[in-house]
């Protein structure tokens, strides 16, 4: 296959629209490699106007040779220095200079496409199914490419895992995690390693790498491989082959789900199983130290299923919704969604599971001391009652941090409440026999330290940075004579390894992965490797000595698995249907539990130094540190803390007060004899005596964004993570250092301690909140009520049906004729489309997927830590987070806010040059090149969604080394210059594209209609909507009364933000519905809304 074809024609793409399969033939055969002069005279387009033309008269070769005049005309100027010849030479040398600079073109010569490939229209994007893997778990993706360069990643809406509609009316929908979406930024990262290096940094070449590998091949038995986790069937096949040849294989992930496997081995007698909850069937969901929306490998599936059963008219039936019970130490997005959250130290997950087990399955009861605590006692009692009532309709999920015993107990609890077969199923773990990650790396490090490892090949990963600190992996690596590290970046591990081999980005290489349920997912490349580089499977193949390219390898593995699906189909769809693992019915065995420590037995009030617990928490920015060079992720604020560009220690507000720790100061956390200094973030709702250390900061070789030897982003918390305290550590101390450090927090720029009547020792205190006037305005901004109210009181509405403000809001409503508006200006009468959005606060988990999607779609710039502190972040959609209630047990709501596209937009009225105006379809448009930057519009926007380009945020893309980054820009969206205002456009480029497509379809004989005529609901999807795993965001046309958005706008939960400003926003929120257990009202959040 020619290089050119790899570039331009990934196999079996689908067009932006239609999604029909184009089974086009190989284009290569149409490309002529012969020089022009030798071409047969047949006109290239295949048609001919006359016989003479067909015979190939010279003058008819014009189109061929590109001569403006017949060749004879050119003969007249044979002077070597004529103007024409001079320019020809100049042009050719310029072009050749460009060719020479393109590394990826060097293998074969480039020939322009003589014919337009069947599925490509210049200016029109194509979409290809591909896949992404994180921590050994695959995610099916749909990549959008523009003229051969991928520009956006989304969930694959046809993938059987985690796809499919939630709001009735959508069939095709798939969310995508922030990491999956942002991973495209790494493709164009100029900091990626661009060539192999040997001897700790000396430049080398792929030939040298190949030579080194052929040396290794002779004695494979002495080779150790340390791989990051992978679910790839191809990699698995290669691994088996290598192990067969004597290679010792190790696998390590710093954020591992091995505890769950180990738990099932305890519970089911040495069977490694994977529990998969079916949340769409669950009426009661209990999560034990588990963030099912962000951190779980099945987070997308769980988000979707949770949303299905959370909706009032969802999978559980009309008027019913699930109830979420969350027991956790660190406040997570799951805790924010919970109806009942219990802040409990992670180490007390075991006694809590024991208590549930004792009450439901007759197991050993935890000590009375633990049960006596009033909060736990009450919570447990009501929870047990509910689980007993909801047998077969409830499920318990434990998180990765909890020890194996907890998972075993949870298995028994699930069994006792009839979950298996109903709300839960078990599938066989594909690698049931492999040693646990922690065990594997420990063994390897010991062997390395003892000098027993001669050759170590590391496939991905960064063990020097993220292996348990007590293993001293970096030091042990020095004992290894030959160490080879394959990675996209020359990271900390590469710097200590003797060889570094650049790894191809997943969009540059063939591969396959399995999603958490086992569905085989094929990853096809969209672009030839920009900087060279091998994929993991290619490296394995190289080691085996039978060097095959990725496609051959994946195809071979695919055939070996013996599935029915043809290869082409699998590549086109991105997955092989019906390959999910089948459920097994394991039977429980009895098991013993370890003795509880003193702090586990009770004393949740213990928060003294020396008795603290430290919980290691994955980063929402870098996962485990691997995305450290991703500016999009660093600038997407954490779901709960709203901090950007740093990791930190999470300390409960009361714990902080007791220990004298303050927000925005540096504290010292000490575990055993290891200590780390990092900033303190005091957060309400963190379990007492528990400190959350966020992982993934303090990289020293991540790249220019994420940290170099001289300048790090965040703080290295792996320094205190050891094999004995890997998930969480106990007996820790935390002391203030007296140094202060400002965290770039997008929500609390002001000094929280300067409010009226504030007590400086406790931030977020209720007194303080009252003083800020939040308690009276929040019920206006975030409307909420309970499921019970909604069911019992049929007349409940989120927005008062009658009332001063609402009369205003409804004035001019077509349903209430004769009531004119109260606006100063004539109100617009909309004839055609009326674009609108609805955001359901009930199902928004605050996962940030929309923020990253918007960033990628709309070329939203990144401003950096300093400018975030200056409150100049540019995100077009933000997620506001508010706490409510007490510091100990707060509730949290998330509210995504983008431009509300007011029909009576206050911004438009005040722009002196008319740079922001209203479209006939109700969009608030922004003409960047008309904007002079008075910023009055932003002042007059009640929602503060406008973003000003205070500086030239795109300056660095003009630097030569960063030019590659510009390939990522979405060509449909203007890159804004400094001094102009910008904001959410409702993805106007997608609306216009959809209109053009509709119009084109009409012209070519499709459904009749006009440009302003109706389009099928769902034709236009905004980027945020597309990414939302719970479909909390719905976009559409209000003029279509049956559209989802129109129905949602008519819903009684629907309300406008700040209706008294009479802006008539086109975005409406749907009130948040909570579903508290009536027997636990004391713990339930207060009911808001209007009853």
């Amino acid at each position, binding site marked *: 296959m020619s290089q050119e074809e790899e570039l331009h024609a990934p196999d079996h793409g689908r067009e932006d629209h239609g999604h029909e399969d184009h089974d086009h033939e190989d284009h290569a055969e149409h490309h002529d490699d012969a020089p022009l002069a030798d071409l047969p005279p047949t006109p290239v387009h295949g048609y001919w106007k006359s016989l003479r033309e067909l015979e190939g008269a010279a003058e008819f070769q014009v189109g061929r040779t590109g001569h403006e005049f017949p060749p004879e005309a050119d003969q007249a100027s044979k002077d070597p220095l004529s103007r024409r010849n001079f320019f020809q030479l100049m042009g050719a040398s310029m072009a050749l200079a460009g060719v020479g600079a393109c590394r990826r073109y060097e293998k074969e010569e480039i020939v322009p496409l003589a014919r337009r490939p069947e599925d490509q229209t210049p200016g029109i994007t194509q979409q290809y199914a591909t896949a992404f893997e994180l921590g050994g778990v695959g995610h099916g993706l749909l990549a959008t490419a523009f003229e051969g360069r991928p520009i956006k990643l989304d969930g694959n809406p046809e993938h059987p895992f985690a796809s499919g509609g939630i709001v009735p009316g959508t069939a095709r929908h798939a969310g995508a995690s922030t990491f999956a979406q942002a991973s495209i930024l790494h493709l164009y990262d100029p900091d990626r390693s661009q060539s192999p290096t040997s001897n700790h940094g000396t430049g080398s070449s792929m030939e040298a790498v190949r030579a080194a590998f052929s040396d290794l091949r002779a004695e494979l038995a002495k080779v150790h491989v340390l791989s990051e986790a992978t679910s790839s069937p191809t990699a698995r096949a290669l691994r088996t082959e290598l192990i067969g040849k004597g290679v010792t294989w190790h696998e390590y992930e710093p954020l591992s789900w091995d505890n769950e496997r180990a738990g099932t081995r305890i519970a089911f007698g040495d069977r490694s199983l994977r529990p998969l909850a079916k949340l769409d069937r669950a009426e009661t969901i209990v999560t034990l130290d588990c963030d099912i929306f962000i951190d779980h490998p099945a987070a997308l599936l769980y988000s979707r299923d949770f949303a299905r059963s959370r909706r009032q008219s969802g999978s559980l039936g009309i008027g019913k919704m699930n109830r979420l019970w969350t027991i956790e130490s660190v406040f997570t997005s799951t805790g924010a969604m919970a109806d009942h959250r219990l802040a409990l130290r992670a180490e007390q997950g075991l006694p809590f599971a024991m208590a549930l087990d004792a009450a439901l399955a007759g197991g050993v009861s935890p000590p009375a001391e633990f049960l006596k605590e009033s909060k736990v006692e009450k919570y447990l009692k009501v929870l047990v009652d509910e689980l007993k009532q909801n047998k077969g309709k409830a499920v318990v999920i434990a998180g990765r941090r909890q020890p194996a015993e907890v998972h075993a107990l949870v298995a028994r609890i699930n069994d006792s409440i009839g979950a298996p077969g109903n709300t839960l199923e078990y599938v066989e773990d594909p690698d049931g026999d492999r040693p646990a990650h922690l065990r594997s790396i420990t063994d390897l490090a010991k062997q390395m330290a003892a000098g027993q490892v001669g050759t170590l090949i590391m496939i991905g990963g960064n063990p020097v940075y993220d292996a348990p600190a007590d293993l001293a992996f970096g030091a042990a690596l020095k004992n290894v004579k030959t160490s080879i590290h394959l990675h996209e970046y020359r990271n900390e591990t590469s710097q200590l390894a003797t060889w570094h081999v650049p790894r191809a980005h997943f969009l540059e290489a063939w591969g396959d992965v399995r999603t958490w349920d086992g569905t085989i997912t094929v990853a096809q490349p969209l672009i030839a490797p920009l900087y060279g580089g091998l994929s993991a499977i290619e490296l394995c193949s190289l080691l085996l000595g039978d060097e095959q390219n990725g496609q051959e390898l994946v195809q071979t593995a695919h055939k070996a698995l013996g599935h029915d699906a043809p290869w082409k189909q699998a590549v086109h769809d991105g997955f092989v249907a019906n390959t999910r693992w089948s459920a097994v019915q394991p039977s429980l065995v009895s098991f013993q539990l370890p003795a509880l420590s003193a702090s586990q037995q009770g004393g949740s009030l213990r928060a003294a130094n020396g008795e603290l617990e430290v919980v290691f928490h994955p980063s929402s920015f870098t996962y485990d540190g691997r995305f450290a060079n991703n500016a999009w992720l660093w600038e997407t604020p954490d779901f709960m803390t709203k901090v950007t560009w740093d990791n930190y220690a999470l300390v409960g507000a009361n714990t902080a007060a007791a220990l004298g720790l303050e927000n925005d100061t540096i504290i010292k956390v000490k575990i055993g004899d290891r200590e780390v200094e990092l900033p303190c973030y005091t957060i309400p709702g963190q379990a007492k005596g528990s400190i959350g250390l966020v992982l993934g900061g303090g990289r020293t070789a991540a790249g220019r964004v994420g940290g170099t030897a001289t300048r790090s982003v965040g703080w290295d918390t792996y320094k205190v993570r050891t094999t004995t305290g890997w998930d969480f550590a106990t007996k820790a101390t935390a002391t203030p250092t007296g140094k202060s450090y400002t965290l770039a927090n997008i929500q609390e720029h002001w000094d929280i301690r300067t409010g009226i009547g504030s007590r400086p020792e406790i931030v977020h205190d209720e007194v303080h909140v009252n003083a800020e006037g939040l308690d009276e305005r929040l019920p206006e901004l975030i409307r909420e009520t309970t499921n019970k109210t909604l069911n019992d009181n049929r007349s409940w509405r989120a927005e008062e049906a009658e009332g001063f403000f609402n009369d205003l809001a409804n004035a001019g409503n077509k349903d209430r004729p004769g009531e004119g508006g109260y606006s100063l200006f004539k109100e617009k009468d909309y004839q055609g489309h009326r674009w609108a959005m609805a955001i359901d606060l009930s199902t928004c988990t605050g996962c940030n997927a929309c923020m990253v999607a918007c960033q990628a779609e709309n070329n939203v710039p990144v401003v950096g830590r300093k400018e975030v502190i200056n409150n100049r972040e540019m995100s077009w959609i933000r997620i506001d987070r508010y706490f409510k209630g007490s510091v100990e047990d707060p509730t949290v709501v998330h509210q995504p806010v983008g431009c509300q596209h007011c029909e009576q937009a206050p911004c438009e009225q*005040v722009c002196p040059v008319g740079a922001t105006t209203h479209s006939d379809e109700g969009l608030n448009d922004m003409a960047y090149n008309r904007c002079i930057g008075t910023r009055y519009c932003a002042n007059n926007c009640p929602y503060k969604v406008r973003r000003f380009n205070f500086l030239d945020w795109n300056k660095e893309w003009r630097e030569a080394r960063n030019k590659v980054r510009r390939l990522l820009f979405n060509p449909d969206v203007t890159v804004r*210059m400094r001094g*102009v205002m910008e904001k959410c456009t409702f993805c106007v480029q997608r609306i216009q594209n959809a209109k053009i497509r509709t119009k084109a379809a009409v012209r070519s004989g499709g459904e009749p209609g006009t440009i302003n005529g109706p389009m099928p609901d769902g034709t236009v999807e905004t980027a945020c909507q597309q990414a939302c795993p719970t479909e909390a965001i719905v976009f559409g046309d209000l003029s279509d009364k049956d559209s989802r958005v129109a129905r949602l706008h008519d819903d009684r939960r629907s309300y406008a933000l700040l209706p008294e400003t009479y802006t008539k926003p086109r975005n409406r929120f749907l009130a948040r519905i909570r579903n508290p257990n009536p027997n636990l009202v004391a713990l339930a959040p207060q009911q808001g809304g209007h009853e």
Partner: protein
Amino acid sequence: MSSADATMDPHHVEAGKAREAFRAVTRDVAWVAEAPRPHKAWLAALAVSLILFAGGVYSIYVLVTTGIGVWGNSNTVCWAWDITNFVWWIGIGHAGTLISAVLYLTRQTWRVSINRSAEAMTIFAVMCAGLFPLLHTGRPWFAWWMIPHPNDMQMWPQFRSPLMWDVFAVSTYMTTSILFWYMGMVPDLATFRDRCAAKGDAIRAIIYGSLSLGWRGSARQWHRYERAYLILAGLATPLVFSVHSVVSFDFATAQLPGWHTTIFPPYFVAGAIFSGFAMVFTLLIPARHLFNLKHIIKDEHVEAACKIMLATGMMVGLAYASEFFIAWYSGNLFERFTFINRAFGPFWWAYFLMVSCNVLVPQAFWFKKVRRTPIVIFVLCILINVGMWCERFVIIATSLARAFLPAQWSYYSPTRYDIGLFAGTIGLFFTLFLLFFRFAPVIAISEVKGAMPEAHAGKKH
């Protein structure tokens, strides 16, 4: 003049005395411009002003080449020092117009001693003010798009925007003020011309001669001059009220709590006059001391101005109280919070300064002793200027910093470029004012003469 004749005839005696008095006025005013060497204090002041101005020019350079990001403004507080300074400077200009036009029409003869410098102050203040709306735009090189002009882009300004109204209000104000000031100066420039010519200083005579537009002091010229002056005064009078009303619309027509209030036009006008008078006397109290003009700018004049400041200060105080009352009375929680936040929120210091300087400080003017002690008045005037600056800052920044949605709340602190530009405009203002003081008739000689008792000698009956 023959003294013998004068002693004979009482009329002549009186006329002679009058002539002498008139001449004294001319001399006393003109010596400032004619002194071969400037006063040392003047030089020192000019040096300081020029340094400040240079700092301002550098700040502008950095601002225009780098972007608004060099300021402390943010997405929450989009306007801060820029518009605060704009409104403050515009307000300062107001006293000039008030003194020249309104007091002229109401025949307040005490105005003549100060109207020229007050008018000059107006113009210089409006020049400083005008810099801010221009420079605060993200792309100042396109600021001309705000001017309605036929163009092939087929674009037209958006007339619903109060910023457009500002463009018209301020440019009208600027034009009228310059015309008024310049026209009033023509007879005095002619006096300067004649004196320079008499001394043989040809260059100055030519310059002053061209500026005096051929003034010969004929009765017909005087007649037309008086007519035109009256007409211009009539035109300028509504501007006293309109300009700051229009500027206040920038805020009043917005929906932001703390801005959206109908009290703003009168409140802003009162505040403008208040701060304008304070600035006039901040300048004139040292000037009349330095240039020995105490017999022209008399203590009575200063006292009258103090009374005006007392009155306008109390109007401003009433406005503050009314805002609070309405915020409470409206029952609007956002409105109520905004005002509580102003007084007790993170910007409490600005609010505190504003109330103490604008409401409490002028209360001292109840006491005659204070009104007669220039140094005290000078200090109080500076305090009032500080207070009025804080008032604009409080209105603009505190309202923006904590608007409707708490998630977007923020704080504002200025950067060195904010401070540099503000200091630069102060430097520009004083540079221009010092130059004016040195080279132009700083007191309306002809008008002072007209207002002197000697001018009405013949009318004694």
